[in-house]
């Protein structure tokens, strides 16, 4: 009882913190609402006040609020996908970007952008509309299957193989994306650059709805898997003896992390290291107890990306700092810290 109550307390406190940060982020920005606080504008918008200026409404609701919500959704998914992958590979270095899932997703998304125009008309309308998203998901899934096949045998992961196959996939992705940039037209070029940098500037409510649907599906299945991921630390056979359907668990993690990473990449490009930073910090507090770090990473991922994004759009006003710079700045040293710890354990 005690331990679980603690979890709910942590969840409540961090959720409150997230709400406060989200409200604060609403206040930060270049646009000036003629001396009125953004909160008043939001109130006017919700009540449908006819005096509300269209430009105020647009900046607050369609630009700022949608971007904040997108940061929350994307950050959360990146962190949870990282934590789940680490449970599956039993290693704190397994994250979507390091093992190549992000590159796989970016590559197929880039192919869809540049070459999609040629065959788009033959596809059903629904698929046309979401072609980039679907390609990103397939790219992430293929990369995931490849890495898993190469690095895991008999339930044991070879960490070196895992990271190196990530390097290989990233290299392939890099070269093909480079080629696509070379042959692409201006309009496509802008899209591609956006993907490589990673940004939440393109947030819209339509995208947020899609992200929210993906999050609900994935979290309903993944978040209760804390116990199962703990049991996996005993080894797959012993987890099976504890009544866990290991094969089904692995399939669920593979498909759902690919889905989450693919969707994030399709909408916000490659924002690295979130899946590394968040579980690392949580592990310092809760060891590797996935019943804690899995649900908590859902909230702390949101906090991290929201803070980073608010910082990136406010520090060099009126311009923007690419958000990937900030997450890499935090993630790089943590990567090294994990490596040093890893070296000591041998």
């Amino acid at each position, binding site marked *: 009882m005690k331990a679980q109550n603690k979890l709910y307390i942590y969840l409540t406190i961090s959720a409150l913190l997230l709400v406060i940060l989200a409200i604060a982020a609403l206040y930060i920005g270049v646009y000036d609402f003629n001396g009125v606080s953004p909160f008043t504008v939001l109130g006017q918008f919700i009540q449908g006040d006819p005096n509300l200026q269209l430009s105020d409404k647009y900046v607050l609701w369609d630009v700022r609020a949608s971007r904040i919500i997108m940061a929350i959704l994307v950050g959360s998914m990146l962190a949870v996908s990282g934590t789940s992958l680490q449970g599956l590979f039993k290693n704190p270095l397994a994250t979507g970007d390091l093992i190549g899932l992000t590159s796989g997703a970016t590559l197929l998304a880039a192919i869809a952008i540049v070459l999609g125009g040629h065959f788009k008309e033959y596809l059903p309308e629904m698929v046309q509309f979401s072609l980039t998203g679907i390609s990103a998901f397939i790219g992430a899934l293929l990369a995931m299957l490849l890495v898993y096949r190469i690095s895991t045998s008999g339930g044991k992961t070879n960490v070196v193989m895992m990271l190196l196959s990530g390097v290989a996939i990233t290299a392939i992705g890099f070269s093909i994306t480079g080629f696509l940039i070379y042959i692409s037209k201006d309009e496509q070029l802008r899209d591609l650059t956006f993907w490589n940098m990673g940004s939440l500037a393109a947030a819209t409510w339509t995208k947020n709805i899609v992200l929210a649907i993906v999050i609900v599906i994935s979290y309903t299945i993944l978040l209760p898997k804390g116990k199962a991921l703990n049991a996996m*630390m005993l080894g797959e056979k012993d987890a099976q003896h504890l009544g866990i359907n290991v094969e089904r668990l692995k399939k669920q993690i593979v498909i759902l992390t690919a889905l989450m990473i693919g969707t994030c990449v399709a909408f916000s490009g490659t924002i690295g290291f979130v899946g590394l930073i968040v579980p690392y910090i949580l592990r310092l507090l809760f060891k590797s107890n996935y019943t804690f770090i899995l649900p908590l990473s859902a909230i702390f991922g949101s906090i991290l990306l929201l803070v980073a994004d608010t910082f990136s759009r406010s520090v060099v006003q009126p311009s923007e700092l690419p958000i990937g710079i900030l997450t890499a700045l935090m993630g790089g040293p943590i990567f090294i810290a994990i490596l040093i710890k890893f070296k000591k354990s041998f």
Partner: protein
Amino acid sequence: MLKARQIDYKHKEFFILNDVDVTLDYGDFLAIVGPNGAGKSSLLSILANEVKQGQQKIMFKDKDISEWEVRELSLHKAKFSQHNSNEIPLQVKDVVMMGRYPYFDSQPRKEDFEAMNKLMYETDVYHLKERDYNTLSGGEKQRVHLSRVMAQLENELEQKLVFLDEPLNNLDVKHQYKALEIIKKFTQNDNSAIVVLHDLNLAAQFADKILLMKSGKVSAYGTPEEVFTSENITQAYNFPCTICPHPVNSNPMIIFG
């Protein structure tokens, strides 16, 4: 309780197990003994439904073991593996609580904490409960896993089965006896145990039945008195020995050399 007929297990063209039959009655403590590479661990892992190879049928409680639902099965049987993970970045009590995972969804209930504490007392690891598992010695880790496995079968069901693969590795004399007493007590409630042991004298003292293996085959099966004859053992281990009655409990006592 458990019936298995004609188990074959091959690695490439090499037979690890060849035509092995095992029958276990309710309440039996069966010890599997034999020299290195005789196939003891392979047999145990096939009986515990870890490896699926060939068409052998293993009947657990009169039902094919592969037809049991995974979670349901985990309430009736548990297994202690020989190679336990060295790296589990959790506290000892979290590792023992894993044995209760089949019983609760998200929050451990009162019974789960009771079972966890009871088994930690019995295996003498209660004082280590807040320690990091990774900092324990080999023998202490073994005891943590023993209490995890036994906590898993702490329920109201009858006729349960536990598999243990060399549970005494790294344990000191006192804890070897304690571990065997826990298993013995478990089998006295109509539950059964199949245990791979290396120490023939401990096997003779605690087990009801002995299965002596050599080169993937059963070379003798029966009560300790029937199996532990100097011919059987000398032949299986390729090493001379003398058998005499144990001065205290009159079980067969094996003296090598």
